């Protein structure tokens, strides 16, 4: 079973993703912010993919990405944004190996998200 880390500061959004992803046969780990996500990334070695919100009040998504690069543990990520944050960091993201395809704008269609997750994980 694939393990997915969901990072978002909005509990309502986390709950939707959790319900949806479990229904579709994934194991879900939740992180209510960037700091918690970094902690989980440092301790749990078996995360297959991450759904990451860009704009969060304490540690934004770009911090999590940078931490992954720092500890040299790059896992596939789908970057979720409600605004122009992803654009703002796009040059950084591109340098770290992400493309426009990895970005989804809120409100995202859950099935679109599912399609993207399956593509990233290489399951039909």
């Amino acid at each position: 079973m694939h393990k997915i880390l969901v990072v978002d500061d909005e509990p309502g959004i986390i709950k939707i993703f959790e319900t949806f992803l479990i229904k579709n046969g994934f194991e879900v780990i939740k992180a209510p912010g960037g700091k918690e996500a970094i902690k989980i990334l440092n301790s749990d070695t078996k995360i297959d993919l991450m759904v990451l919100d860009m704009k969060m009040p304490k540690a934004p998504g770009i911090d999590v990405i940078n931490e992954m690069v720092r500890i040299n543990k790059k896992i596939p990520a789908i970057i979720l944004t409600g605004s122009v944050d992803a654009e703002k960091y796009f040059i950084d993201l591109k340098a770290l190996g992400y493309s426009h395809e990895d970005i989804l704008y809120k409100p995202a269609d859950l099935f679109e998200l599912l399609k993207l997750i399956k593509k990233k994980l290489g399951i039909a």
Partner: protein
Amino acid sequence: MKIANKISISFLSVVLILTGIAVPIFYLIAKDSLQKSIYNNLDTAVVSRANHIETYLKMLEISVGQLSKSTALENLLKINGKGDPRQADAFAQAMMRLKRTKEANPAIAEFMLMDKAGKVAVSSNESSIGSDKSADLIFLGGQKGSFIKDVYFSEVYKEPLLAVSTPFLDSQTDELLGVLAARVRLNDLNNIVTEKTGMGDTGKIYIVNKYGYMATPARFKEDVVLKQMVDTENVRKARLHKGREHPLSGEKKINVFPDYRGVLVLGAHEYIPQMQWVVLAEIDAKEAFAPLSKLRLIFLIVLFIVPIAAWLLGIFLAKLITGPLQRLHKGTEMIGFGNLDYKVGTNAKDEVGQLSRAFDTMTESLKQTTVSINTLNKEIAERKASEEALRESQERYRALVDNTILGVTVIDTDYKIITTNTMLAKLFNKPASDFVGKDCFREYEKREAVCPHCPGVQAMASGKTTEVETQGLRDDGSHFSVRNRAIPFFGPDGVVKGFIELVEDITERKKAEEKLSKALEKEIKTREIMTSMLDDTNRVREELEGKLQELKRAQDMLVQSEKLASLGSLVSAMAHEVNNPLMIISGNAQLCLMEDIQNDEVKNNLKIIFEECHRAKDIIQRLLKFSRPSKGETKEVDINKSIEATVSIVAHQFKLVNVEIKRNYLKNPPLISIDEQQMQEVFINLINNASEAMPGGGAITITTSLEGDFFRIDFKDTGCGMSEEAKKKLFEPFFTTKEKGTGLGLAVCYGIIKAHNGELKFESKLNKGITATVLLPLGGGKA
């Protein structure tokens, strides 16, 4: 600096240095030897006193020892306390013996005889008979041999005493019978120690006992015996040194130190081992070193007098040397003033004397030379006078030439300028000296060879004055009209030497002539112009009105763009806050839809919720694009191809509504750095707008061209144009003329093009269609 000063100062400094070094050295040597001699005196004194004291102590021991051989005392001891009837007699005998001996020896305070148990059997002082001395040092020390008890304070006699004791032995068996002791007054010891002979005003000798207290009286302090503690350097060193006992244990001599009163003294010491006494001899440093202060005064006087003497001697010597030099100096001054008869020579045999005589010889030869110079001077004066006359005549001639109103120049046969007057120089705006020696044709007409019309050529050939009218050319390129008159001149042999040219400036006259003819022509032209001017005025007014309207439009646009920018940032902030709730609504709707819902209406409603959420998302995304602060990813693009790619998306659709697309592309367009994805959004918006402006079909003409530093793209339609109101609100978000428009299309286009530093404008004439124009900077523009 004068030589005199130099000499006296060097003299002075040598003497100062020498005395400055010598005097302190002498002083130190003197001080050292004085200190040594004082110390030796003290040491001799203290050693001799110590010897004396030891002898005295020995003597005390001997005298007590002698008494211990007394039969009377022996008898008493043998029968004492044994109830013998002879005891009273023996006691009286012994008593007498002791009293008598005491009287013979005034220094003795008391003799006493103790029995074996330490009880006083008999004493010269009756009150002590019978007392128990078994614990007294006198008894204990005296049992084994001759013993001297250190100075102690006697409670009985109320004074400090010494005590000497010795064992009393049986004259036959040598068996110990008792102890014989004498208490001794200190008078004799004090006399020995405190004898002041040869000790000066402050010298003192005293004994310090083994406990560190004074055993003999002090010279400057009352009541010190056994009361004054002395712990000075002298005492410490004496104990360390132990005098003759260890003669080699270090230096005995010590330096100046403070004594028990705290006064600085010089001192020596000696140690008496038997008593562990220290004998000290000390003298106040002040007295000891008194001779030194006298010596110091003498040295100071020497230090003061010697340099003065050296200074005076220096001045005297300097005078001796510089005197003749000064006389020589005075002599040279006299000769300098012209008194060649002055003699400075002296008979002195030294170098200065030789110099002065050589000087006199020189003066003599100078005197002879001066005479011949005088004749020469006279000749020079005469020549000067004739030259002056010549110069005056030249000046007159020069003044004449310079002040004539004609330009005058003198030129030789090689056409080189010999001279030029100020008037001519003024004509050419140059100083007259600049012309001398130069070619006349170069200077006056800027030619490379002799002027073809040169009047000089003819004048020199014919020998007659020749005239010509020509133009002078200045260095700055301006020219003026002149009349030239060349007059040849000849040398004394009649051969032609050159020519003089008289130059008259006729520019003003020429101008006046031209003016007259021009004025006539003008008169005719003016009439023609007056008639056409009326037409022009009308045209200018029309143009001005047009410009005014353009200006008004530009101002409106400016206000508009300011408004849009602030609206944009507001929208950006708001959009973020709206997206999260939208996500929750949309997500929940989707989750619900995944459940098995039987009611179709509920299912449909959920679908509507989901779809509307995404419509809201689209609007927000467009708003965000409109307010986007900068370009995204840029690359160099062929704009024609980029437009063509956009057109191909809509072409099929346009055919259905009868819209034709005409292309008028610039060939070989320059590549431009843009965000192609964004720019294509602009193109599709503009093409769609154009199409929608022509509901009945028509043509869109896309033209690309270069305009200054910009790449220009025009989208022209054949629709009905737009109203004035639409023109004003064109870029305002949510303003639309379409039934289903969001009113964001052009606002987004505007945002994108601004981010590229470009321009977007519209031209519309009613019923003639609209032209949308995009201008993009060729340099890519700095975002």
